[in-house]
């Protein structure tokens, strides 16, 4: 996994690429928690370049969400490929996270 922070119309977006597993999820966790530390909201993660995610990746997002909730913030996900979306819905987390189709969606929403 590689990770970039992309500026999209003034909104900072965490953009991981590749496979999120137990080996790479700590790197994602660090970026998300840095945003949480700055009390950023919404905390936006673009998953369009993510091809694989396991339960450690899912756990990382749950942690990020809990962190954001501590200051009334939100965590928003976008760009989920079908196999990625599927594991969120299997985990019953598709209702807990806000899943958007595009960054513009979030800006307008």
């Amino acid at each position, binding site marked *: 996994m590689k990770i970039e922070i992309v500026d999209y119309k003034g909104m900072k977006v965490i953009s991981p690429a590749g496979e999120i597993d137990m*080996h790479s999820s700590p790197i994602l966790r660090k970026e998300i928690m840095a945003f949480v530390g700055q009390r950023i909201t919404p905390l936006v993660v673009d998953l369009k370049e993510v091809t694989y995610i396991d339960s450690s990746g899912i*756990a990382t997002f749950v942690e990020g969400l809990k962190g954001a909730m501590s200051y009334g913030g939100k965590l928003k996900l976008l760009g989920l490929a079908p196999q990625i979306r599927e594991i969120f819905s299997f*985990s019953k987390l598709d209702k807990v996270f806000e899943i958007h189709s595009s960054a513009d969606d979030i800006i307008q929403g």
Partner: protein
Amino acid sequence: MPRTQENNRFILTIPADARWLAIVRAAITKACELAAFPPTEAGHIVLAVDEACSNVIKYAYKHDPFQKIVLTVKVSDRRLEVFVDDEGPRVRLEDLQGRSLDDVRPGGLGMHLIRRAFDTVAFDGRKRRGNRLKLVRTVSEEKA
């Protein structure tokens, strides 16, 4: 692998370190292809084997990367059997409980993903030291 009928399986031995999970996924993905699993089922199987190895790393070996995990993968037509061997303390299946999926918290998802992917999830009681998790899946016609 003695010189018997056992030419239907390969064995992958990795250090108990998450860095090697990518190798496991690559090998299991190909094994699913050889066994003629459709892509969605193959995806579930690959994820489940990743989860089983992650659990061994975390719980059986408490992140000691000098331990090893041995995967034995038996490939038949439309059927895959994966044995995950570790040398950690003995566990029983009853001890491995995921969270309720309605309880939103980090963790507790791995066992659910393993049970979703495999028809059989069992520990082999005959093993004398460590654990041997047996995972079996047959291609489901309707999901294909």
